[in-house]
């Protein structure tokens, strides 16, 4: 959060209009490492203030655990196996939910995007579902599926299917008609047209959808695990709430943040490899 508020100011500072003189250019080159250093000053200072406030007893550990305490708790939870075990459970839920979402979203988008009948049957319900906040389904899902793995995976799957469907469907429908026409003059069959033109053309949109889906899958999981669960990161955090263990809660938050960051990077790498043909991806052969 802090990092994000600092960035625009520093960018505006380095974007000097006009051609920089030699001296200016030298200053700008040096400004990169010092800028990074300068920008890390305030977060570090904040950590120090936080630690000082905790150590002096100004902030009680029931309100907010100290940074050093969070670190030692993280190490403890890792070595005693609590964190890895819950993390694996959470990962399995998010992973299987996301896998279902990818299969369902891609299948529905292909049906709706490639056939008139499919569009009529699928698109309207999907567009209606889109307006529904998936999290509001939690009580219903608990009633239907109980408190096992099913409601959690179903919630992740439902929430993540929507962006994949919407983006891929849009991608299929916005294929350049000139390319389709070219395919006709080359005598491509319908299957060839889909494989050579439609699917690769819609791939960038599919990946955009996937990126949204990955984000949503974590969001769904957080809620599902905090409402009812006996394992998973979310459960670990709600459990800690009962014992006023803010250190454990903060470790959970940290893990969620890292997971979000990591999965976003995975999708970025996917984009770079699969969309190598785009000049912006550095795809010069």
């Amino acid at each position, binding site marked *: 959060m802090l990092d994000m508020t600092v960035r625009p100011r520093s960018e505006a500072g380095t974007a000097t209009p006009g051609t920089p003189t030699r001296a200016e250019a030298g200053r700008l080159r040096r400004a990169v490492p010092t800028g990074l250093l300068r920008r890390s000053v305030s977060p570090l200072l904040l950590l120090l203030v936080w630690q000082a406030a905790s150590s002096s007893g100004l902030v009680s550990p029931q309100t907010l655990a100290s940074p050093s305490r969070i670190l030692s708790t993280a190490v403890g939870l890792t070595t005693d196996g609590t964190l890895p075990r819950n993390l694996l459970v959470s990962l399995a839920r998010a992973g299987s939910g996301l896998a279902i979402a990818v299969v369902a979203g891609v299948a529905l988008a292909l049906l709706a995007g490639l056939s008139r009948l499919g569009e009529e049957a699928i698109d309207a319900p999907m567009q209606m579902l889109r307006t529904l906040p998936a999290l509001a389904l939690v009580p219903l899902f608990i009633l239907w599926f109980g408190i096992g793995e099913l409601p959690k995976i179903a919630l992740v799957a439902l929430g993540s299917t929507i962006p994949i469907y919407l983006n891929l469907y849009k991608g299929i429908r916005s294929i350049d008609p*000139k*390319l389709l*026409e*070219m*395919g*006709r*003059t*080359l*005598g*491509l069959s319908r299957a*060839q047209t889909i494989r*050579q*033109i439609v699917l*690769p*053309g819609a*791939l960038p949109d599919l990946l955009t959808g996937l990126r949204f889906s990955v984000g949503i899958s974590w969001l769904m999981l957080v809620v599902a695990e905090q409402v009812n669960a006996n394992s998973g990161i979310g459960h670990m955090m709600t459990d800690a709430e009962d014992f006023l263990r803010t250190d454990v809660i903060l470790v959970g938050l940290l893990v969620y943040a890292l997971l979000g960051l990591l999965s976003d990077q995975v999708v970025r790498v996917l984009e770079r490899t699969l*969309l*190598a*043909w*785009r*000049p912006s991806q550095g*795809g*010069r*052969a």
Partner: protein
Amino acid sequence: MSYERPAEPAIRIEGLTRRFGGNAVLDRLDLRIGPGEFLALLGRSGSGKTTLLRTLAGLDPVEEGEVLVPRNVAVVFQESRLLPWRRVWENVTLGLPGRDARDRAVAALEEVGLGHRLEAWPLTLSGGEAQRVGIARALVREPEFLMLDEPFASLDALTRLRMQAMVGRLWQKRRCAVLLVTHDVDEALLLGDRAVVLDSGRIRTELPVALDRPRRHDDPGFAPARRALLAALDVHETV
């Protein structure tokens, strides 16, 4: 103006009419193209050139009249229309059957001088290179009838001259029937055996181009032919 038509035309169009909302874009059009003939089709914007080409390419339906074209046709569009997500050689083999597709694509690309860009992504090509890939993609199918829809219109002047010479060479080697749709009178005279001017959906002028090949701008017959074609297009060059 006499022109001896071959007995068996490669392309035969009779009474072709195409209407858009009651407006006849093509109006009882008759046209024949002989086997191996290079026909240049000129006309102002909206004269029906594009509609005629699209009909011959099978992209537009024949609603009135009769159209006979060989089965094996190929089209080169004004924009190269390459698939950006397929490498250059894969664009050329698109829809091409057979195990030797890649070899044939490589040969076609070498013919248009792009043997060194086989693995390139289309978005990294220059306009002239992309258009040459489009030509290779058409030629690799060994068409009996090749349609070129203003293929050089968006290229710079020097590239255009080079491409015209290249198309002329390739055609002389292959001798397929060609329909070149163009705005450019010089281009029509450099390449065509015959130039026809389309106006309001009908052939208004038909001019055999009796200039020796290889064609040159400074051929004494060039200027009169050019004047005649420009006059048919309602352009009178006096400054």
